[in-house]
């Protein structure tokens, strides 16, 4: 059937364009951290709504996301506000139900670097446990929970789009994909690509034969 053929071709063409556009983007990379070691040590936790604030943070200009070392099994919605000198520099929020040892919150990129800002993260919580991770630090540098200092400083990373596109990194990614395997080698990436191509061809042929 003519409409099936057109739909399939248009769909595959759009898919190809979307892939190329995606691969022409740059992966996010770490623009800076607050130098707190990444050792996943707990410096506090809560099962109730809380606001955590940490001062003396250097915010690189152009930051597009902030990664906080909070750990949860089904994390709550998190809002971040970055301020300096009584002025909000940037803010952002991330929906609930995130999982893992860190949460990344997209923010509006600030135009320039700020050498000393305060990062505040707030969330509503009833029972779920959220753990703050970082390293021991004196009270003057420590992260505060609802205004009371904890016994350490939370690790924070500042992310921005990297300089290279995914396409230019393709070979590097393919090499990495070949590591940690039964028979290591970049050829593994080619096998994956061949399988995906076979899936696409077989599915398309079946559509034309059975639906068209």
């Amino acid at each position: 059937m003519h409409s099936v053929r057109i739909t399939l071709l248009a769909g595959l063409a759009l898919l190809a364009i979307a892939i190329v556009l995606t691969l022409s983007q740059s992966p996010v990379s770490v623009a800076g951290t607050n130098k707190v070691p990444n050792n996943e040590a707990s410096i506090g936790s809560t099962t109730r709504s809380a606001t955590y604030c940490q001062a003396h943070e250097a915010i690189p200009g152009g930051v597009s996301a902030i990664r906080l070392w909070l750990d949860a099994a089904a994390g709550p919605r998190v809002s971040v506000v970055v301020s300096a000198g009584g002025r909000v520099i940037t803010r952002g929020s991330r929906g609930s139900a995130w999982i893992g040892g860190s949460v990344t919150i997209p923010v509006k990129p600030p135009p320039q670097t700020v050498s000393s800002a305060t990062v505040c993260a707030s969330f509503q919580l009833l029972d779920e446990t959220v753990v703050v991770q970082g390293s021991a630090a004196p009270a003057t540098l420590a992260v505060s929970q609802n205004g009371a200092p904890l016994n350490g400083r939370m690790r924070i990373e500042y992310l921005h789009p990297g300089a290279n596109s995914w396409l230019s990194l393709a070979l590097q990614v393919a090499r990495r994909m070949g590591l940690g395997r039964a028979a290591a080698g970049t050829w593994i990436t080619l096998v994956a690509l061949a399988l995906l191509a076979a899936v696409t061809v077989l599915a398309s042929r079946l559509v034309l034969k059975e639906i068209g």
Partner: protein
Amino acid sequence: MSTSPATRRARAAKRKPTRGRKQSADRQASKLADGPRAAMRAVLRQVPTAAWMCALVALLNAACWSIVTPPFQSPDEPDHFAYVKQLAETSQLPATSSEQFSYEELTVLTGLHNFQVRLQPQTHTIASQAEERALQRLLEQATTDPTPGSPNAGVAASEPPLYYTLEAIPYLIARGDSELARLQLMRLLSALFAGLTALFVFMFVREALPEVRWAWTTAGLAVALIPLLGFMSGSVNPDSMLFAVSAAIFYALAYAFRRGLDRASAVAIGCLTAIGLLTKLNFVGLAPGVLLGLLVLSVRAARASGRSAYRHLALGGGIALSPVVLYAGVNVFSGHPTLGLLSTAIDNAHGSLVAQANYIWQLYLPRLPGTVNDFPGIFTARQFWFDGYVGQYGWLDTPFPAWVDSVALIPAAAIALLCARSLVEHRALLRGRAGEIAVYAAMALGLMLLIGADSFRAFPATDGEYAQARYLLPLLPLLGAILALAARGAGRRLGPAAGTLIVVLFLAHDVFSQLQVVARYYG
């Protein structure tokens, strides 16, 4: 298209079962008596080429996922691997749910930086030749461990042994190779189950919605391309076999509802239920619905053929429940709780029945006025189930950006609307099949209740312990039916194009899901 042989066949299939059809069923029953081989050949001959092709697409897709997903970076894969290791090397079941795995497995996990990578989305897998050389040294070192098996199998320890017994075959085939080679071969066996899942979804839709032939392919292909199916079936996890067995049961029930319950159907449903119960505990959620199905089918058959139909019910039900009876018997005689770990879980239940019912309701639906809010700030249907289905890979730590989940609502809503339109158009037919629909609903409800009750055991420490979309994939045949109905809902002229669009949409979802996983682990 309206005069094609395909349409004529579909029209013929639409008619009620005739005497000839019944004779054919009788011939099949007699072939079953002739021998399992002849019966198997007869059954396989009934499977259309398109169904095999859907199976092949699902198999290749899952095989691709098995490569894209780094070793041991899928939910509980180290635990499932440990179970197989124990079974293959000692012929014994794991003894404890501790995660202190064997020296060999821990060594490999260390070499892969597994504990640093999992649940830490910012950390990639090993990325340098130096790390690779260190891993290879550890792999060699690991093989020197003389202690066989792994008595600790983490969360897998409580699962029944059938899937792990099958996985012991590739494990033993690659016994002389490294642990990573064994894992890859085991993953490929799981990928086979993805193929079976797609095949049975195709066959289910063919039986349940026989009128429009091309819609079967839409359903089978779309399910074959579901990234969550590929991801789970591309790793070592009994879920992969559970999806296939569940899809087979849906097909067997649809077959029996369309053609009547005979001895062969009752035996097939009973055997599949027994296999399901031996595959993964989650099957317990589907079992009451399956037994209800046998009951409804027997009552119908009894109207035509008298009380002898209830013999089929007894036969199917007896086979279905045999593993439970055997398990309970062994436990009673060995002084353990009657239902083993399940009894312990029931004993450990906390909170009132109302609190539990409220929790389970809210795990899927918006809370009712005047009830306690168990999920503050979380719209469970959207964030746990929909977003989880759209994409949560790895150790559920690899989601899409939030905007993708929002955009995905558009095609999901379009599919829901088209499906609703199709159902409204065929509402008269639906009324005639209320019993069959009630059985499928009971199976879905049973599974959802089981997931909810299990999650409630971990509440309030964890809000939705088992609120993971993969646990609903045993209901894939129903999704297949929804997709087939949605395509048909676009109308006779636009239907095939809508079906094609659905397949392309699922293909795109699959491709971008794999790219997301590649970016997270190797970027």
